[in-house]
């Protein structure tokens, strides 16, 4: 197991380096350099002063030196300064992170809570109207963009309960009740499509397991269907589901960007969109790097968990 984890960690290294090159490279591909961006086009600055600033930020050095300096900073937690607020980028991200984490966690929680029972029911009642219903609802959920579902939810709750998304954000520690009210709709909007994916996965995985010989044996022993499913089938059927949950948790980090915008939540997705509008490149770099690394680490964790649950994987 240790050897497997070590091998996966080593495999992640070139990907992490690749990510850092992409993130570093994105600001170098933009026409004009960072100094021009900071000063602006109409800035009253002489060419000499521009050169001085370039030297100050190290832009006069060769590209690979610039990259190494930047990468060294990133590894030690220094991702630069926001051009808009003059705050360190890691501070800006850390400030917004709790919102995004809570949203991600709750979305996945709701998605799994709904999906796994639905998937199991669809598999057990294979060929029934129930299964057909579950399948078509998942198809529809998959085709519905989260920002449209979010908009519909806002419309529905405001019409029926006179309830609007709050303009101001309240943290969980300040007022848990108010905080949960703020998060419930965005979590449902974000979790719905993921829930559909997990439902389909649970269903097909369960169907496959129910066809296995050991399940037939368990039934032949005279065990009740409930015991066969809960004790024998479910555990093995859920192994591939865990992978899907992991991969989708990573994709959720992309989805939050949009949902935070829809519901006015001050998370890192909103930070990214605002930074793009204001061309605040250090912050964009910081957020992109953070999310991509988190994505890789989540997938790594899922792989390890998968190998732990299903020992056959380790020996491939």
């Amino acid at each position, binding site marked *: 197991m240790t050897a497997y984890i070590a091998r996966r960690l080593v495999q992640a290294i*070139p990907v992490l380096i690749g990510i850092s090159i992409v993130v570093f490279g994105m600001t170098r591909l933009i026409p004009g350099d960072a100094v021009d961006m900071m000063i602006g086009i109409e800035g009253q600055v002489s060419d000499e002063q521009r050169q001085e600033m370039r030297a100050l930020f190290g832009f006069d050095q060769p590209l690979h030196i610039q990259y190494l300096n930047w990468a060294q900073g990133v590894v030690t937690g220094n991702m630069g300064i926001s051009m808009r607020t003059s705050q360190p980028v890691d501070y800006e991200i850390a400030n917004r992170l709790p919102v995004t984490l809570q949203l991600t966690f709750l979305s996945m929680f709701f998605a799994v809570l709904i999906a796994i029972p639905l998937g199991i029911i669809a598999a057990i009642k294979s060929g029934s109207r129930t299964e*057909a219903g579950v399948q078509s609802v998942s198809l529809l959920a998959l*085709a519905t963009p989260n920002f449209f579902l979010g908009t519909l939810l806002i419309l529905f709750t405001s019409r029926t309960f006179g309830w609007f998304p709050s303009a101001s954000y309240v943290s969980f520690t300040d007022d848990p009740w108010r905080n949960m009210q703020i998060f419930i709709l965005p979590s449902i909007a974000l979790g719905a499509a993921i829930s559909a994916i997990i439902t389909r996965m649970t269903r097909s995985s369960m169907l496959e397991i129910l066809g296995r010989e050991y399940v037939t044996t368990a039934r032949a022993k005279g065990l009740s269907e409930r015991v066969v499913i809960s004790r024998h089938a479910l555990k093995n059927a859920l192994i591939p589901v865990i992978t899907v949950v992991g991969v989708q948790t990573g994709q959720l980090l*992309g989805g939050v960007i949009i949902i935070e915008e829809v519901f006015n939540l001050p998370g890192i997705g909103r930070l990214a969109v605002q930074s793009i509008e204001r061309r605040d490149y250090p912050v964009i770099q910081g957020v992109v790097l953070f999310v991509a690394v988190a994505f*890789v680490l989540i997938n790594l964790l899922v792989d390890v968990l998968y190998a732990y649950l299903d020992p056959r994987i380790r020996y491939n």
Partner: protein
Amino acid sequence: MAEKSQGQQQASTKSGVSSNQLTEDTPQRDTRSFRSRAWRRLKASLSAKIGVTLVSIMILMAITAPIVSPHDPLLFHGQYQLMEPNSYFPFGTDQYGRDVLSRVIYGSQISIQVGLISVAIALTIGGTLGLFAGYFGGWIDSVISRIFDVIFAFPVILLAIVVLAVLGPSLTNVMIAIGIVFIPQFGRIVRGPVLSAKNNEYVEASRVMGAHWPRVMFIHVLPNVAAPLIVQSTIAISLAILSEAALSFLGLGAQPPQPAWGSMLSSGRQFIEVASWLSIFPGLAIVLAVLGFNLLGDYLRDVLDPRIG
């Protein structure tokens, strides 16, 4: 437009029956021609019918937009702002008095265009890279596979945003961004089968007979992966439409006054209390388009490649 709402009704009420038939109808050995198999599947499956219908309607709508739109999608009807749906404006009007129905119809042009072009970019680049990686192996394979890994290491929307942050927001750049993001899915589909196909005897034979590698690759190896590529392209189109809508929603895609569904939905949200039709109709259009291409993809997979799925 009547056809469209009919399709939508079918999707929400009846599609369930079909998915059922899809799973029960297990693939059997088939000696009949491809065309008759496709037709038989289409007749047997309701979800296939819905998929084909929705996609046909959407393509037809995009082509005939200037004829079937009741109004000019960009024209301000100053005195008719934020009107509820009525007989003159079936989907109502927006804050500038523009006809929402005409804008939704013209929006299909944008979605189809982005779907086709971005997938064509991803298919060409990804497919070629995958072909090279699988055929030559060695360090070429390693380098290309690492590039795929890195692209895969970003959530789809995030990487598209990175590309748009560099290139600047516009519809053309959205196509490029989505095209880049989708490269690895096509690359990986091609790489695996090419890896195994290149050792087939007939490929070996053509090489021994003196064929150059491009000929071997394109004539002998590529047809092996045609079926999964067609299926993946169809599903990728639905994902591209979804991604374009999301990016336009964030203001990074189509710029005003272009009638993209995502940006219509986004600008309609500020009027959600007084004019919900501004958000609902473009939103439904996205759902139906994505659903259509998804179902079409399932159907094509069923017909072309019964082994997968």
